């Protein structure tokens, strides 16, 4: 890896080199290193379109890194990664994609991730998206995440896209069985002329299944964001979604919540709020000695922390 690639790797995955746990590092369309462990097995799909990641039942507190780096202009790829999580396993999966585009061509990564969580397994999925480079070429990321949660399983998705991605269309779909729970925490910031659309569809099919979808975003300059969340309560279940956006400058933000109860014991709540930074928040921080600009930065950073 060159210096730019190493910097991107650290930014999105928090590592400087190959970790000691299981990993696959994909750079400019190909794997540059991969390693399995006794409990976590990574194999490449025969058609070369991605990886299969198998985690043995009862694997406890292991991590796997699967970052993607693109430092080349004119590179468009679609990658299919499938994750099979054994029963009772407890794992953290650190994904993420960093793009450095200093050319005039398009750099685009569409990652299609499908998770199959075995009974009573627990997955924390961390995904950071980041773009840099001073070329005119667009940096585009379109992640699709499909999640199937078996009885009693739990998944938490922490996704962050703070800087440098010109266009993103994020689609997440989940089917949740008995006593299983999906928590999604999304942090998003757009600036310049960026566009971000994020769409969640969660089917709460099982008894006592639940979900909590929390999105916090900041839209600056001339950027545009669309937030769509659909929660379908098909059994005795609990669903909550919350979209909170700070709008600044000439940005545009749309939040389209949809909750559907197909069962009398489905309890569903949606909260959505879009607004500029409250003047009194700026004033309060100014009384603590911050300038107006410092106050604004502090509020935005805190909101997306």
């Amino acid at each position: 890896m060159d210096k730019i690639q190493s910097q991107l790797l650290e930014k999105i995955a928090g590592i400087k080199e190959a970790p000691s746990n299981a990993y696959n590092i994909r750079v400019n369309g190909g794997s540059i290193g991969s390693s399995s462990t006794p409990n976590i097995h990574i194999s490449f799909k025969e058609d070369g379109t991605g990886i299969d990641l198998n985690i043995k039942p009862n694997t406890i507190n292991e991590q796997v890194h699967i970052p993607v780096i693109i430092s080349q202009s004119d590179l468009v790829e679609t990658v299919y990664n499938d994750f099979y999580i054994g029963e009772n396993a407890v794992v953290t999966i650190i994904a993420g994609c960093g793009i450095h585009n200093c050319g005039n061509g398009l750099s685009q990564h569409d990652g299609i991730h499908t998770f199959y969580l075995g009974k009573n397994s627990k997955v924390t999925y961390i995904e950071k998206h980041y773009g840099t480079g001073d070329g005119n070429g667009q940096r585009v990321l379109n992640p699709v995440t499909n999640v199937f949660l078996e009885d009693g399983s739990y998944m938490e998705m922490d996704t962050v896209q703070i800087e440098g991605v010109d266009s993103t269309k994020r689609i997440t779909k989940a089917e949740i069985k008995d006593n299983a729970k999906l928590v999604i925490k999304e942090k998003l910031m757009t600036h310049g002329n960026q566009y971000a659309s994020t769409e969640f569809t969660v089917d709460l099919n099982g008894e006592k299944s639940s979900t909590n979808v929390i999105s916090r975003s900041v839209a600056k300059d001339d950027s545009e964001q669309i937030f769509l969340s659909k929660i379908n309560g098909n059994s005795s279940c609990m669903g909550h979604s919350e979209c909170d956006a700070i709008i600044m400058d000439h940005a545009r933000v749309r939040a389209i919540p949809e909750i559907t109860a197909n069962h009398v014991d489905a309890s569903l709540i949606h909260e959505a709020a879009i607004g500029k930074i409250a003047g009194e928040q700026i004033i309060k921080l100014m009384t603590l000695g911050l300038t107006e600009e410092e106050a604004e930065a502090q509020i935005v950073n805190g909101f997306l922390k």
Partner: protein
Amino acid sequence: MLELRHIYFEADDGLGKKQILKDINLMIEDKSFTVITGPNGGGKSTLAKLIAGIEKPTSGKILLDGQDITNMDITMRAKAGIGFAFQQPVRFKGLTVHDMISLAAEKNLSVEEACGYLSEVGLCAKDYIKRELNASLSGGELKRIEIAMVIARKSMLSVFDEPEAGIDLWSFHSLIKVFEKIRALTRGSIIIISHQERILEIADQIIILANGSIKETGSKEELLPDLLMNSNTCKFYKEVQS
């Protein structure tokens, strides 16, 4: 020392210009404890905001230790040594109690140091330090955190706008103890906008503000007996408003 000279403040209430403050002249001595009281709508909060720089006077001068600070903005006044506790504490999504107290102190406080300030206002620090300053906190909790922030600033002059407003009786008793403690350990001058007898009782100086003008200034010995005798009747308000 803070000095206000011939302060006037006008505001547009939609029906035309309204005189909120008229020819306010007052002096706040160093290390003094001043309570400004008077009927609602008399201009007390406006006066507090003028001192903090949140509002600018239509005319008149504000001096801090002889320096003219009339045209200084809020940030400059904070840096010059003026602290301000809001009547309605502001909520922040994402910023924690620890973040806010660190910002107030203008340095990265350790958890222990930040907890020290919370303990000063009677909060069990470990329960609060990591919490966001958002709607999950009660009015009384937010109020005490607001006061902790002002204490952490160690300002030359601290202004508290109705610290008792919007809190329950139980919180109020602890709040009084907090002010008694601040009074005992006064590091700088304190101005409190208040209607509360218990707060008036610990004042060096009481200022009665009504209809935008200072009606009386004096020690608690001079003003408190009359205030307490008449505060439950309309007489006080009629007198100060006449």
